[in-house]
């Protein structure tokens, strides 16, 4: 998987997405990261194995960036982890650079909400008792529908 890929093997390092300087016309940076929680539906979680359909997921992540840029006039970067993650590790990072905070927040929220409905990625949760299961998800939509 190439370094410029939006899908990364293993946990994401949020700070890595913040090294690029802010464009001088931007005043608002909004970031969202999703991390693995230790409990889900009352069960003790030890980690999540993220599976992706690589080709379609890469395409959809790029479409989310482009659509968010157009809808909100913002610069948007989206990355998602695949493979085994432990509790506390980051599975997804959204970074938005916009003129002002309203667009920054709106684009960031739209991007994560859209990602969850449009990108072919699946969580396989691992539990403290040794069990594992794929979580129920939502039927995939296109980015334009979202």
């Amino acid at each position, binding site marked *: 998987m190439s370094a410029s890929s939006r899908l990364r093997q293993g946990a994401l390092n949020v700070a890595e997405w913040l090294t690029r300087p802010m464009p001088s016309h931007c005043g608002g940076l909004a970031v969202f990261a999703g991390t693995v929680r230790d409990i889900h539906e009352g069960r003790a979680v030890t980690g999540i194995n993220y599976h992706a359909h690589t080709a379609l997921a890469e*395409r959809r992540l790029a479409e989310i960036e482009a659509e968010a840029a157009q809808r909100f006039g913002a610069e948007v970067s989206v990355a*998602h982890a695949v493979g085994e993650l432990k509790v506390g590790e980051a599975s997804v990072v959204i970074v938005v650079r916009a003129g002002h905070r309203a667009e920054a927040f709106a684009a960031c929220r739209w991007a*994560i909400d859209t990602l*969850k409905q449009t990108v*072919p*990625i*699946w969580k396989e949760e691992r539990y403290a008792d040794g069990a594992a299961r794929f979580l129920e998800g939502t*039927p995939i939509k296109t980015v334009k529908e979202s």
Partner: protein
Amino acid sequence: MSYIGTMRITVECYGASQRWCGAELVSLDLGETATVADALGRLAERYPELALRRDTVAVAIGDEIVASGRTLAEDERIALIPPVSGG
């Protein structure tokens, strides 16, 4: 290999569809004008858990979701895209 008048395709099972079909890859022999819907129909006959969820599953070829009327070709690979849970 396939008989005259038939073709073989490969189905890649993603996410929970690996559980429903019991494998990551499934081979299907279909008639030579078979569509995506025909392939899903054949899988639903074989795998009851998939049959229950058939309306929630999309099919991708390459980096595109394809319509159920899309005609398949010999040796093509299709991917089952069950409900997604990324983030």
